[in-house]
Structures are given as structure tokens and as C-alpha cells.
């Protein structure tokens, strides 16, 4: 338990603890909810997403699986079509390659193929993101890869409050939900601390709606749209520039379905748009948002869109190489200043 401050109303949790608390609260009230995945049992999830669950619910509801992602994701789908609500963890998003058929061809499509007769109420959670030299196979974000497939909802919280609320929403949703937690937002004791990864989390159950972005920081000069850990960087920059440039930060929270209205409304107000994305730049989230503006009303813009996104390269190992590519605060600030000047 990583409770930082237990005083009433201001209790602060790490994102990891907020996620596991959300799962636990749903498990207490719904016997159909169970968890399975690699190292989700006594270990508590490699990134802490199931911390404490094994102690409370035991091996019958917190199932450690073999390294067999096609097998256990498929089993999650089978349990879900029978009406259970499995929360399945794919340890790293990068491992999707060994189980993508279950995700793309089964989890995402069964409801549609059945004409709405079969539901797949399942959460598939996974760690994303880099910044700690884990190389090309353990550092990707890939939310666009999943958001590209119709039938999947994809959420990626940036803070503990939203993580708990989105997890509860995901478990209650009758659709498959891909729940992507960036390692950098989890508040892990063994990784560089991002201060916004620990924050106030209500003790009671609550939901954060899937498909609804949040204005994380209000502003009038420029809209910065982002998701997950990059939102934290955007907020840092927005606070730094306050008094000089008024930055509005839109935290998408959900990639699919995308809350286009909130983005459009913000851009209508500011007339300028920076899109910050740790996922690959081409054919991804940043392009989708740019296309939305272009399709709906390009006249909203007073200046061309800027993108601070991961360049189209595999993620390099050496620190200097990886940080050359990551969407850092400096790059975000430079893009904003360039756009507003």
C-alpha cells in the first residue's frame, strides 16, 4: 500500500494503487469480476496494478497464468461471452504480437458479428510507454494500433483519480476495453518519479466516463491535446508558461471513442493546436486529431497544427537516443512558443 496522505478528503494514492483499489471495489460487489494474467497474484502485477488483490481475494479470483497470452486472453473472452467480467493483464503492450488474433479478430468483433447478440464485457489492461531505456520491444505506446480496430474502447489515464474511475467504468462496460497504463504514471518506487503520478483519490467508488476528455488546464492562447504520461509533461509546461502564454491542456483520457467535440471546442477558443503523443507519429492519434480539425472546420486555426510525437523509428536503447525521440517538456514548450510567437 502506497498511501501518501491518509487525511480525509485529501488521501493521495499512486496510480497503481488507484487501479488496484478500483478493481477491488468492483470485485467486492460483483462476484463475476476476476483477474488473470502473468504475475498478477502474489507479486501484485509487475507494475503494481493488482497490488493487494491476491491477499484479499485469493487464488480463486486472482489467477496467475502461464506465459501464454493467446491462451489466457482467449480464456478471458470465453468467460466474458458467458457473462463474467474478467480483468486480464497483458504485461507489456509490446507483447500484443503473440496474441493479436484474440484481440483483433475475437474480442473486438464478436459483438458485431453476432448482430449484437453476444457481448464481451472484458477489460484488457497493459503497460505502455518508455523513457527508462527498455528498448524497442518494451517501451511502445501503441494506443493507435488498438484504437484503429473498430469494436475496442481504448483508455489511457494520466493520473490516479482518472485511473480508478476509468477502471471502474471499464469493468462495468459491456464492451471490451483496452486499459493502457503508462509505466511513468504508475508512481512506481523503482522508476523516476513523476509527481503527478501520486494524487488525490476518493475512497468511495466513482466512475470517469469512457469517451470523455477533460480540460486538465484552462487557457486561451493555445490548445495542447495529449494523453497519458505526456499530459503530465504538458501540465508542467502550462504551469511554467502561465502569465506568459495561456495554455489549455486537453487530456483525452480515452483514445477510442475519441472525444472530438472537446478538442474542437478548445481549438475554437484558442485557434492554435499542439498535439503531443508518445505513440508513433505517422498514422496515429496525432494525425487523427489533425484530420478532425481539417474535416470539421480548418478555419478554426489561426496557425498550422504542430505535432510533438514519437518519430517513425523503433525505440532506441541508449538514453541519449531515446530522449532524442521522446516528447519531452522542452519540445512541448518549444512547439507552444513557436506557435504563439
Amino acid at each position, binding site marked *: 500500500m502506497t498511501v501518501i496522505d491518509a487525511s480525509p478528503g485529501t488521501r493521495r494514492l499512486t496510480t497503481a494503487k488507484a487501479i488496484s483499489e478500483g478493481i477491488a471495489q468492483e470485485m467486492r460487489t460483483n462476484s463475476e469480476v476476476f483477474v488473470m494474467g502473468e504475475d498478477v497474484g502474489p507479486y501484485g502485477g509487475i507494475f503494481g496494478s493488482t497490488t493487494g488483490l491476491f491477499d484479499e481475494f485469493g487464488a480463486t479470483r486472482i489467477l496467475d497464468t502461464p506465459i501464454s497470452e493467446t*491462451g489466457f486472453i482467449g480464456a478471458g473472452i470465453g468467460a466474458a461471452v458467458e457473462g463474467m467480467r474478467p480483468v486480464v493483464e497483458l504485461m507489456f503492450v509490446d507483447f500484443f504480437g503473440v496474441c493479436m488474433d484474440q484481440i483483433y479478430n475475437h474480442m473486438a468483433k464478436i459483438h458485431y458479428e453476432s448482430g*449484437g447478440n453476444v457481448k464481451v464485457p472484458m477489460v484488457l489492461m497493459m503497460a505502455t510507454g518508455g523513457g527508462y531505456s527498455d528498448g524497442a520491444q518494451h517501451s511502445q505506446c501503441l494506443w493507435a494500433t488498438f484504437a484503429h480496430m473498430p469494436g475496442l474502447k481504448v483508455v489511457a489515464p494520466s493520473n490516479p483519480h482518472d485511473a480508478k474511475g476509468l477502471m471502474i467504468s471499464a469493468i462495468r462496460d459491456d464492451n471490451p476495453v483496452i486499459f493502457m497504463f503508462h509505466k511513468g504514471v504508475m508512481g512506481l518506487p523503482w522508476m523516476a518519479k513523476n509527481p503527478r503520478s501520486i494524487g488525490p483519490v476518493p475512497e468511495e467508488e466513482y466512475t470517469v466516463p469512457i469517451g470523455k476528455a477533460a480540460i486538465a488546464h484552462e487557457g486561451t492562447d493555445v490548445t495542447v491535446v495529449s494523453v497519458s504520461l505526456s499530459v503530465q509533461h504538458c501540465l508542467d509546461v502550462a504551469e511554467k508558461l502561465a502569465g506568459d502564454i495561456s495554455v489549455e491542456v486537453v487530456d483525452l483520457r480515452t483514445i477510442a471513442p475519441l472525444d472530438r467535440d472537446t478538442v474542437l471546442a478548445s481549438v475554437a477558443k484558442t485557434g492554435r493546436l499542439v498535439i503531443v503523443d508518445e505513440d508513433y507519429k505517422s498514422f496515429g492519434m496525432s494525425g487523427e486529431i489533425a484530420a478532425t480539425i481539417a474535416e470539421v472546420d480548418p478555419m478554426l486555426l489561426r496557425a498550422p497544427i504542430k505535432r510533438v510525437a514519437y518519430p517513425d523509428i523503433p525505440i532506441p536503447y541508449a538514453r541519449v537516443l531515446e530522449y532524442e525521440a521522446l516528447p519531452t517538456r522542452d519540445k512541448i514548450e518549444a512547439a507552444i512558443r513557436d506557435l504563439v510567437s
Partner: protein
Amino acid sequence: MVDNNQRVEFYRQMVRIRAYEEAIRRDYHADKTPAWDIGAGLIPGEMHLAAGQEPVAVGLCANLRDDDALTAPHRPHHLALAKGVDMKAMTAEIFGRTTGLGKGKGGHMHLFDPDKHFSCSGIIAEGMPVAVGQALAFSRRGTDSVAVAVAGEGAANQGAFHEALNLAAMWKLPVIFIIEDNDWAISVPRDTSTSVANNADRAAAYGVPGERIEGNDVEAIYQAVKRAVDRARSGGGPTLLEIHTVRMWGHFEGDAQAYRGDELAEAEAADPIPAYEAKLIADDLLSESEIAQILADATEEVEAAIAFAKASPEPDPSDAYQHVFA
């Protein structure tokens, strides 16, 4: 022993399935000539029919209840019909009509009937982990329902087959894995694709019982599946069965099958239905008139289902946008 009423019922079900596949074949091809176009006609798309494999479906499903789950592969009609899926709704789905199981969204490889716990996957072996999950749900809820995954012998070289077996074995889940060995993975014979002569031997790798059933004999299949289902229902865990059957027709309709050579005539001669019919006649269980009546009944049911499908409305184009999400 299989009692005599059940033997006649096996025959009736096999005739019913064959009548179905023949009628689908007829209507599938009828409007695709002279310039054969897979996307044209009343039934567009790929079509995988199961003539010759009726004993597997009938012998298997005679052991199953509505609350037992069955995941079928890309060649699913025989299994769906034997599992009790409504013939009219299934036919309407194959014809792409609003009255179909999936309102025309799924097609012949994607038949879903939640009331019968029946589903399909067009991806080889990938229905097997789903059956494991259904069995996991049954087990968690404390019911004695079982889940069955059916796949072809070509599927036994897929990772999903091995992952599903390991999981089911380790968690001792009520799953029956059935490999329908029809000798061909499209054009590739099993001796050039599979390192073992008998896929049931692979059960040993997961510490579960394995059995290969030769002869495409509905009664032997029924008995073998019964042992497996009894084991699963009583908490004894999964079983792997490989059933040697026969693919009388092409992998898909339109498959010229030049790769089969003389074996094709042998396969056609190995039709299990006349063989079983002769056996029941010899045992004085069927008369010529009863045989004619069974066929007439089957034909009537099948033609009524096809007529229902043809009379059903096509989807409104705007329906394409429905059911992406619940």
C-alpha cells in the same frame, strides 16, 4: 452400447445435415455461373461445407446439452445443426438477411447462438482458448456444463491449440478438445504438416487423456465423446480426441482439388451415411420407406429454411453502423 432409438436418431441427424449441405451447395453455385464469381449470387463469399464429417457432429453433440458450449471452426454447419442451432436463423445468416443469427453481420464462418452456447471462429485454432474461458466460467460458477472446442487437424500445429491444452489441463477445466482429422489442411496432407501420426499423442504433453477414433463411425465417436464428457462433468478435466473423418468435397466450394488425385474418389466412396444406413438396415432398424421418409422430412425442413432465408429482407445499408459497441 448405443440403444436402437438413438441409432436411428443418429442416422436422421446425419441425413438432415447432408441435405442441408447439399442444398447450400446447390444455391451457392446456382447463380455464380457462367463466369464464376465468389462474390456474386444469393450466397456470396467463401463456403466451407462438411459433407463426410456428419458423424463427428452427431456423435459429439448427442452428448451435449444446450448449456454446454461449443466453438466451431470455419467449417461449422454440421456442428451448428447438431448442437441445435435454429436452422432458419442460421440459413438466413448465410444468406445475409436481417433474420439471421447475426442479422447478416457474421456470415457462414461467424455463427453465434448464445442460447445454444454455440460460436464459430474463422481463424484456425483460435476458438480453442475461447472454449477454455467458457469452461472457466462454468467451473467458477460451480455448474457441471462443459465446453467443447472443435478444430481441424491442421489446427493442431497452431500455438493456440497448445496454449489452450496447457491452460485447460493445468486448471483441470471441463473442456473437450476435438480434432476433426479430414486428412487435408486445404491442399496440404497431414503427413507433410504434422510431426506425429496421431495428434491424440500430443495429449501426453499436457498430462491429459488422448484418444484417436478411426473409422468415421458415429457410434464409436459418440462413445468416445461420452467418456470425455463424463470425465469433464465429474471434475476430471480435459480430454483431447482426434477423430479421423473424411472431407468428401473441396476445402471451399470452387476448390478444384487437383491435389487430391485418386484419393478424392476414395473419399467420396467413404461416404459415412450410406454405410451407416446399410448397417441399420441389416439390424432391422430401418426400412426403405422409413429411409425415404427421413430424407423427405430432412429435405422439407431444409427447403423451408432456405425459403425463409430467401424471403427475409436484406439489411438496410445503414445497419452496417449498428452493433460496433453494445
